[in-house]
């Protein structure tokens, strides 16, 4: 349990550093952004309290906001994801339920389940983020395009990270 806590704290800072030093500079086709830090909230243990989850999301989003000069936007989107996460997890419980103390990851539940789990949550995050940034629906289709291409980009990077870390977890 304590070991898991330390791993989570270290990966909290790792996600922030990867996001602001690396992924912030990578934008494909001028429309596809990668917000990998959402994965941190998605990967926290399944039975974690929603309140705690939201506070962690707020702090993480706020830190990302400082580097993006967009005070409040990332925090707003991420808190929403954190709130919805546990309800969504309860809705799509696989047969036999979740193992106690595990995280809802690709290795634990398989690719198909993981896509069903992460796709809507990441999409909600991107929609909120881009529409709040556009401050309304004037640029509706362009903002939609941004959200969808970013969704694909973020999910791809997220899956790659999952596959890269699977073996180490099993050992």
């Amino acid at each position, binding site marked *: 349990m304590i070991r898991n806590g330390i791993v989570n704290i270290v990966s909290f800072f790792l996600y922030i550093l990867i996001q602001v030093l690396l992924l912030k500079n990578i934008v494909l086709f001028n429309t596809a952004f990668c917000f990998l830090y959402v994965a941190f909230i998605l990967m926290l243990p399944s039975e974690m309290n*929603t309140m705690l989850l939201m506070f962690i999301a707020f702090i993480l989003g706020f830190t990302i906001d400082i*580097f993006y000069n967009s005070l*409040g936007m990332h925090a707003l989107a991420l808190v929403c994801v954190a709130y919805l996460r546990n309800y969504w997890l309860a809705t799509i419980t696989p047969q036999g339920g979740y193992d106690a103390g595990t995280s809802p990851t690709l290795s634990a539940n398989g690719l198909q389940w993981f896509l069903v789990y992460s796709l809507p949550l990441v999409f909600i995050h991107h929609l909120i983020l881009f529409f709040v940034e556009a401050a309304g629906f004037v*640029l509706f289709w362009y903002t939609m395009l941004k959200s969808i291409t970013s969704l694909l980009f973020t999910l791809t990077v997220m899956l790659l990270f999952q596959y890269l870390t699977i073996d180490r977890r099993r050992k």
Partner: protein
Amino acid sequence: MERLLKFIYAYRSFFTFLLLELLCAWLVIENNQYQSTTYFNTSNQLAANIISKSQSVREYFSLRDINSELATENSVLRKKLDQRNQLLYAMELKNFREPALINRFDYISAKVINNSTRYYKNFITINKGKVHGVLPGMAAISSTGVVGKVKSVSDNFAVLISLLNIDDHVSSIIKRTGHYGTVQWDGLDPHLIDLKYIPRHVELKLGDTIMTSGYNAVFPEGVFVGVIKSFKLNEEAQFHTIKLELSQDFGKLSFVEIIRSNLKKEIDSLEQKTIGEPK
């Protein structure tokens, strides 16, 4: 009362959710104010240090371009200075001095450590701050044109609102005809920008030069903005729909100059006296 408390306790996570989202929304709105005094952005000492470290790595790859750009600018400026001196001699004005007017603007050179062009609201972080005399509301230009305005400053860093920010307006003038308009970005293409409020009787040409008007005392007049790339006039519209090609390539921005207008206070207080408080 007990029921109410029980109700709140039962839905505590929902209420925490509402509270946090309201807090975030308040932060977003607060941050939209032009010239906020917040420290929670990249002018923050720690954040700026991390970013400038990563920028200094990236910079190595573009050093050659930056150098040649600066060298070209130097030679152009030197030529201009020479021409101006010749002109002054010819007009026998060399001894004419009005210090307040000659020193109307001070220039502070700064390095860009963070820049974006792909969001709707883009910001630029520079490595000069309060210590160097940078204050919120000052203008930023580069050798090729308008860059933006200072939004917030810390001791050693400052955040600029880029011209590529859907909230930024700059008063501009068409050089050939002398008509005034407002330049504002539409959030789509980082090379194009809109020129608004040019009345329909004005006859435009492709390639007309747009410069700052100097009407708001932030920008000096005559700073290059761009040239007209396309324009059209809708049947019932009051104004032309004009697209400008920006003279500044924001993707390559590496050095900017902050302009300190020494007469701004005087102009502002005079206008306030005659027109009243700005709304």
